[in-house]
């Protein structure tokens, strides 16, 4: 291979790489409401987001008293909020849209109850803490995730032991 042909090959590779990068960026931009995602892609994207969120939850030190619970709820709520925001950017294809909407609603309800839980914990209100925890459980966000096939999102995260 001559030096000139090597340069041409390098240039072609660079252009191809650039094209892929642009395409990939375009792909991200196309996750807006205008481009519905096929089911497999939707599941992959949601599972990836849930995996990141679950890892973040695992890094948050677990509260061991009501005094620590408000801060714990706030940090978990921030993670849940980011997940909700990220997944809200995805648009499923029509057959999945209602199940996906229900999942997002459950996620939203859970996040709202986390704020209630934080308020209750900060006020030392154990009844309020229990009620908010019950409401989060009742939101069944994992169940709705399972319905649409988000197996990672459906899995109950283990409680960190340290």
């Amino acid at each position: 291979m001559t030096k000139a042909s090597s340069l041409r090959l390098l240039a072609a590779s660079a252009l191809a790489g650039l094209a892929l990068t642009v395409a990939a960026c375009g792909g991200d931009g196309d996750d807006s409401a205008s481009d519905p995602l096929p089911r497999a892609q939707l599941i992959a994207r949601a599972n990836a987001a849930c995996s990141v969120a679950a890892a973040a939850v695992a890094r948050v030190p677990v509260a061991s008293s009501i005094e620590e619970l408000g801060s714990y709820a706030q940090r978990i709520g921030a993670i849940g909020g980011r997940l909700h925001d990220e997944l809200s950017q995805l648009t499923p294809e029509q057959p999945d849209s209602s199940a996906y909407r229900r999942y997002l609603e459950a996620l939203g309800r859970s996040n709202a109850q986390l704020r209630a839980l934080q308020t209750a914990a900060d006020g030392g209100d154990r009844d309020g803490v229990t009620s908010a925890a019950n409401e989060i459980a009742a939101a069944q966000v994992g169940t709705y995730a399972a319905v649409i096939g988000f197996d990672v999102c459906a899995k109950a995260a283990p409680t960190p032991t340290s």
Partner: protein
Amino acid sequence: MFRRRTQLAAFLSIGVAAVGAATVAHATTGVGTGLPQPRVDVARSDGDPFVGRWAIGAIDRRAQITSGQLMIDYTDTERPFMLGSLAIYGYDEDGRQQLSSAITYPYTFADGVLSARVISQGTFERIGFLQLPVPRGADELNGRLTWRGGTYRVSFDRLPPTDLETPLPQARQIDAAPLRLANEGLGPDDAAFYGRWTFVPSRQDVGRTSSLFAPIVRVATAIGDDRFLADSGGLHLFEVESRTEPPRPGGLMTVHAPGSTRAEFLTDFRWEGPWRTAQVRAGSEEGPVVGRYVARVIGDRLVGTLNNGDLEIDVTFQRPQR
């Protein structure tokens, strides 16, 4: 707090009036309860099996309760909710007979278990916790009552709703396990029990459908209800050697709950039939005795309870793989 106490007093003055003679009709009939609406409703289909008048039929002897009555009903308020009254005859720490009146509120229902706090009529503080699994029959409830720092098995027998004159029956006193088992050791062959037993999580994981929120649901439930919910751990049973005495079994149990870990040393094992007991010691095998471990061998599992005085933890362990 004062407002809340006033509300509770309004209910209690109506609801828990006459206990021993069972003269409470319907604690909530025709009156406002004055209590805040619970944030979680118990559906009629879940709650109806528990509605009625109940007498304590049997209770763990350690509770020092001689008789009692539980009444559960739905309120007649605009949005009905479950509310109960609990009256208990027993003995205080000095051996004096005592009547305690409480309400059971608010009720929740999850995983087939109806739960409620026990709130003192006298102080309006939370003094206990009641857990009642769905009954198998219509006339008996079996559950657990947390009372004065201990958690005890309790059963209730249904009382006729219209018979308000019958005195409460004396509760049968039951022992959680034989007080002193016949044999020393873990069993006929101690070595068969040695090894690292694995913790079996409770099937009642309150966070099982909550995805990444599962940890905070578990933690908040434990903190809100002031309970120790074990979620992992282990039991190591081994032979303790001594220069002066024959080898004997010893154990180290670790139990993790959200935010805390307990390590308990087990000594003085005894067995009889399926029962196993051990002393629970703090700090080391030579430490002070702080409680008792009682378990039954069921197949490949040790199903038991660790009681160290300030709390009681249900723990199940799976036999090590050979």
